[in-house]
């Protein structure tokens, strides 16, 4: 017996030969498979036929002109948060504190909007709001970065805790500012004067939403350029791949970590500013609504590429709106969308395996092997 009995049937090897076309194909297959599974589950729970499920989902997201604009706006918000997290992720700094960073940005915006409105003209007020939001988000991002750079504190857990500190801080100020007294909420800020509100652009249905979308597009392009065509973007990449290499070539790793997390937090703060000044004109503890976590998945799904992130966030928002519509039309709970989102993400996470690895069969007959199931 030359061969031992415990020789495994196959083993897994890393692959380097994956072409872009094939990689995209695998992802598309995974998404389609996930959508089919989602349709089956929807069919079982609601009794609709699968085609009409996606029909009414599309109706929920793009049914009217206004719905389409709102979908575009929500996509922009999610996209902005995902963009904010991306430089940190590229550095392998797991910033899952987007939720808190957006919220403190929103909190700072509301504070300025409420307290300085009588003293400043409208443009100056908006400018101060913006700066306050960016600083607040930046500080929330820099704190874990400093601890990481100095003492190698676990950033995943640190940023996670900062989320809840931000939530409670917001809850505190909501009661301090509540209007009317005892309502437990702030209400629309400057409802009569509209001071500090982002302006409508143009006199059509989408006018209210254009500015948000514009900022998101601008940030996407800027982030793409920053990550792929700037020296700092390159430094982020090196630190992410290997801290030792970075140190060897003379990159100040601590400085890069802190700087990148300031940018990350600042863009989150900017998103908080838009949420308050441009979208809701009020502040609640659930203002961000878990998008800080969803954005982590969006950024990762897009492989940290800002341009692909547009589609990833559109997919998630489409599911949210669509599944919400399907569920409410059948008298079911809207959390249905979260189940569908979860399933799709599980499939995409799973399919990455077939892009990065291949299964090599140990028999002579199977030449090379092929892992694409």
């Amino acid at each position, binding site marked *: 017996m030359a061969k031992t009995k415990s020789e495994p049937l196959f083993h897994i090897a890393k692959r380097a030969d994956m072409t872009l076309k094939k990689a995209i194909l695998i992802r598309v297959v995974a998404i389609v498979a996930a959508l089919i599974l989602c349709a089956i589950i929807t069919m079982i729970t609601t009794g609709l036929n699968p085609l009409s499920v996606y029909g009414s989902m599309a109706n929920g997201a793009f049914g009217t002109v206004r719905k389409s604009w709102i979908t575009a706006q929500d996509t922009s918000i999610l996209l902005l948060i995902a963009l904010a997290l991306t430089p940190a992720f590229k550095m392998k700094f797991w910033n899952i504190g987007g939720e808190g960073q957006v919220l403190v940005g929103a909190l700072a915006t509301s504070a300025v909007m409420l307290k300085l409105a009588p003293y400043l003209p409208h443009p100056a007020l908006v400018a101060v709001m913006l700066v306050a939001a960016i600083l607040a988000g930046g500080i929330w991002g820099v704190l874990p970065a400093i601890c990481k750079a100095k003492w190698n504190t676990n950033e995943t857990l640190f940023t996670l805790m900062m989320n809840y500190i931000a939530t*409670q801080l917001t809850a505190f100020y909501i009661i301090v500012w509540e209007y009317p007294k005892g309502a437990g909420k702030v209400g629309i800020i400057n409802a009569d004067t509209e001071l500090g509100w982002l302006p409508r652009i143009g006199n059509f249905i989408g006018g209210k939403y254009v500015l948000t979308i514009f900022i998101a597009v601008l940030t996407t392009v800027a982030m793409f350029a920053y990550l792929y065509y700037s020296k700092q973007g390159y430094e982020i990449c090196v630190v992410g791949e290997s801290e030792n290499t970075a140190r060897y070539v003379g990159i100040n790793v601590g400085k890069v970590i802190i700087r990148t997390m300031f940018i990350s937090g600042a863009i989150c703060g900017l998103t908080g500013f838009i949420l308050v000044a441009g979208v809701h004109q009020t502040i609640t503890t659930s203002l961000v609504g878990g998008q800080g976590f969803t954005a982590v998945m969006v950024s990762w799904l897009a492989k940290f590429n800002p341009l692909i992130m547009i589609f990833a966030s559109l997919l998630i928002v489409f599911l949210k709106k669509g599944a919400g519509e399907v569920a409410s039309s059948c008298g079911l709970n809207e959390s249905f969308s979260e189940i569908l989102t979860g399933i799709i993400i599980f499939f995409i996470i799973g399919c*990455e395996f077939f892009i990065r690895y291949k299964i090599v069969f140990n028999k002579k007959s199977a030449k090379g092997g092929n892992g694409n199931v």
Partner: protein
Amino acid sequence: MFNIVSFIPKAVVQGIPLLYGSTGEIVTQKSGNLNLGIPGVMYVGAISGVIGAFNFEQAVKSYEAANAAEIAAAAASNSPDAFLTYGVPFLSVLIPMLSCLLGSLLMGLLYCFLTVTLKANQNVTGLAMTTFGVGFGNFFGASLIKLSGADVPSIALTNTSKYFSVKLPFAESAGWFGKIFLSYGPLAYLSIIIAIVAALVIKKTRVGLHLRAVGESPATADSAGINVTMYKYGATCIGCMIAGLGGLYYVMDYATGVWSNDAFGDRGWLAIALVIFTIWKPDMSIFASILFGGLYILYLFLPMNIDHMEYQQLYKMIPYVVTLIVLVITSIRNKRENQPPASLGLPYFREER
């Protein structure tokens, strides 16, 4: 003034779900898996238990309706129906428990399949599991009645729940001692037993040693002949099942069988915070959970000024701030025995050593 005898039991019942969650997460993290899906797993555990209990209660109801005449006759002749007297109490505990364990086990398997077998990113998988789990819980919590077509106004599993909240016999008569130590349901004591067992297994046994080796350095463990995949699967699935019981305790005992959406709140994240706070020790977690449970409801017991309700919100911040401080201090002191498992969050691929 501050009433310690009524405060401690309240802190304990708040702490028990956290203890389940943190024990489960500690066992999981010891294998090197940072499962951020624990909040979702706890929701799934809770709702699976609820679904099991709900279907069981409906079945009992239809059994009673179908055999009404015989039950009445049996009661009259002083020999009560065997199924209702002996079967129902037993199954009322068993069925929700098993459905809860099954639900959480499936979540654990899903997580392991993605992160261990398919080597996916643990943070993303965990967050996706939380999204999925919380959505799953809220969806079935709100839609169960409509989906099952049952004729009840809301999910109130009082018949099943009463078996989960039986108190120890002397709880009423033993005064303050009874209130502080004896006034909890069986799942509360189970959580403490599980935490102690987990601590002993991790610290004192060979299995625990292997588990820690896998978490610290899977490559070393692998070359020592330890089956890394098996340990990761085992620890994560057992961890998820323990955490799922926390959800079951919450809904069946604490909430007396009444499901309401999002009521479980952020306790799952607090359980993850506890893991750091206790520096990966389940036995410490018994006290820390009760402490966190106490901090969670402290604001109810502090002298309250009706004009300054806002300070309640700051009290609620305390557990998170304290955890942060512990996290930073342990990283500054950099003591070897107080560190997270060295390979925490990293997938293990044998050919990448």
